[in-house]
């Protein structure tokens, strides 16, 4: 059985390495993009099982990417982890409802690995 696909959308290249490695260790086949447009391009062609989405992206906001996925029926079974660095915790209800979970940065390597492994298809 092939590994489930995951996409990491994170503009900080170092952090993207941490996230992708954590997911890989959890058992995913991971793709990494650094901005919103690249994320959309990737998602046009692929339907990853897990998407780790940073809300703060240089071009298109993470929220827009999130909305886009919601409009597409093929993402109905996908899990979307939202990562936010907003210290004010001003996460609105819309994001709460669209995301599977909202993670507050810092998202720890071991922690992410543990959580992601729980979402592996059985």
């Amino acid at each position, binding site marked *: 059985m092939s590994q489930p696909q995951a996409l990491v959308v994170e503009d900080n290249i*170092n952090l993207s390495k*941490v996230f992708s*490695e954590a997911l890989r260790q959890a058992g995913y086949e991971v793709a990494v993009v650094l901005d919103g447009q690249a994320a959309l391009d990737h998602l046009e062609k692929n339907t990853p099982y897990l998407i780790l989405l940073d809300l703060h992206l240089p071009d298109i906001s993470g929220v827009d990417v999130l909305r886009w996925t919601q409009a597409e029926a093929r993402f109905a079974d996908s899990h979307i982890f939202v990562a936010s*660095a907003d*210290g004010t*915790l001003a996460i609105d209800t819309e994001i709460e409802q669209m995301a599977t*979970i909202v993670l507050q940065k*810092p998202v720890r*390597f071991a922690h992410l690995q543990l*959580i992601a492994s729980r979402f592996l298809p059985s």
Partner: protein
Amino acid sequence: MTHSLTDILWILLCAGLVFMMQAGFLSLETGLTRNKNNINVAVKNIADFSVSTLLFWAVGFALMFGATRGGWLGSTHFLLNFSIDTWTTVFFLFQVMFCGTAVTIISGGVAERLTFASYLFIAILISAIVYPIYGHWAWNGLNLGETTGFLARLGFVDFAGSTVVHSLGGWATLAILLIIGPRAGRFPQDEPPRSISGANMPLAALGILLLWFGWIGFNGGSTLELSEQVPLIISNTLIAGSAGTVIGLLLGYRVYGRVQVELIFNGSLAGLVAITAASNSVSSGTAVIIGAVGALIMFILDKLLIKYQIDDAIGAIPVHLGSGIWGTLAVGLFGNPVILDTGLTRSQQIGIQFAGIFICGLWAFGITFIASYVLNKFYPLRVTPEDEHMGLNVSEHNASTELLDLLVGMETQSQNNDLSLRVSVEPFTEVGQIAQKYNEVMASLEQAVKRTDAIVNTAQDGIVTFSRDGYTILTANPAAETIFDYPKATAVGQPFSILIEPQADRPRQQLITEIIESDTYYELKGLSANGRTFPMELAIAEAKIGDILFYAGIVRDISTRIQIEKERDKALEANELKTRFLAIVSHELKTPLNAIMGLAEMVDLGVYGDVVPQQKAILQEIIGSAEGMEQMVSELLTQAQLDSNTFVLRPRNFETAKLIERANIMLTPLAQEKGLILNLFLDDQCPPEMFGDFNRINQVITNLIGNAIKYTDKGSINLSIHFSSKEGWEIIVADTGKGIPQAEQAAIFQPFHQVESPYSREAGGVGLGLSIVQQIVILMEGDISLSSTVGQGTTVRVTLPSDKGD
């Protein structure tokens, strides 16, 4: 002509009765006038009698009854010698009373405004000249049973003096009234006439009865003998007077719908005056008609006087002149020719009666008017308005009564506004009681005013009153004088606008009007006496004392407040800037910090190959430093938000189970990693939905469990959520960790506090210190408490109110 002693007795008796009329007039006039003049009226009645008696003895009797010169003037009996002839003396006694009556009629009509001296002048004029000369024309020869006066010779009959005494007095009264004018306040401009009520009606009523009594002698004695005619004359007199009274009574009912006291008084007198000329020559039925018509004429003439604004204080003209003319005419109309014995036909008789009336008017009115007019030019007949206001008792006689003392005391007080004055109290009298009460009222008033004064004088706000017209400053309290730098009372009399900075777009007066109409506080620039401008708050209210309207401005210097507001705004702005800055910094720092932690962890966990123990130690140092830095940034930001009140809660309804679910996803792996069991328990009593800020509640739970994992090495961590309608929500996090020493428990809620313990990297950095958790819980109107035993574990209990969402 000889006279029996009986006749002499009768005439002497009648003289006494007529004298009684002086008492009647005195009572009537003092009763119908005001208390402030009553002494003056009474004294005039006594003085005029004495003066006229002396003058009638010296001159009047001679001119009236002395030997005639062609029917025009008497020439003998000056300074009458009483020892020569008894009858002449008896006759003098009777006649001197009539003279006194004629004079005293005037005193009532012109009451309450003539100086005493001018009244004496009038008394002299009437008793020495006007009365005796006309009397000569009608009555000369009466004492001798002859008719030698020119009017009498022509057939003019006036039995007891309807014209000779009453009309003549009335004419003189009219002449004087035309010169001196009405009493102050009787005919106010553009208002209906105001009646001036008498002060003592029962006394006036007694006066009426005394006059009736006197009239028995007045008419009854005019036969100059005790003849069989006398009872008829007296009876006619009484029934005519009664008829006049009844007419007065009926007129009162008809016109005013009630018994009008003055109409009863004057109706009765009019009846008596009317019958006087014909009391010996008409039947009893006719006497009733004469009396009744006399009262009607009195009523009509009274209305005419009011119409022409002639102020007859007691109705002397309607009664004596009006009814007197009628009575004299009635002799011609109804008199029995046999008794009149003039030999004239009825129309001739009526004609001569008219002539007599006319000549009387011409003479009495003419002479009195001219003499009074001339005198008035040199010596004003009337008292000054001040004296009239004060009352003639005081101004003419320096008299003082308790009531007057009280009035003067009250007047003084109202003049100088001195509330500390007290009127003198005469104990044991009604007026004394009033005075005492007045003093008590004044004392309370003074206290109330003093209290108000104290408030105004000690107020921190400036209080400035100013007039409606021209906005002129009336008063300014000490605070206002300080605010505007005006020394004591120097602002008073100046326009209110000088306290306001000149406006570029409109006059200050206009601004003031706007503020008055707006009825609210205005913020504007004030202008002090030395030209300094400053921000002030100004409200203007309309105030009223009695009929006087004015404005009261309340002023507050708000320089300090404005300064404080500016500084506060600056501080707030700075605080907000700090918060925003921290938010950006924390946001920008968290991602690279996250990368540092993650990369170090990856190396540490052997992702990139084996790591020697020394390297592992360094990596843990890196992770620990990054965690410490991250936690500090988070705490700084949250603390800054709390300090600047930009920490916002976003409450909403959410599924209670989500709290458990979230903890399971996020925290169970962490606990398991450390070999701990995380028990999650949601009580059955909990409602399926909770209202609150999900993220913040979740943050609290995450922090508490994160800390528990951090400080627990073995055993379990229990999260349980309970609910009761009374207590609300209860969230309990209990661990089996090392516990917190008693000494440190109090400090654990202090910001940036961390229990001194070896760093445990496995736990990872999860959130904020307990002080922040506590502040968040308090902002959610909840509570947090901690109990811990070293070696056994720690339990943290959070309660939240059970608010319901909309």
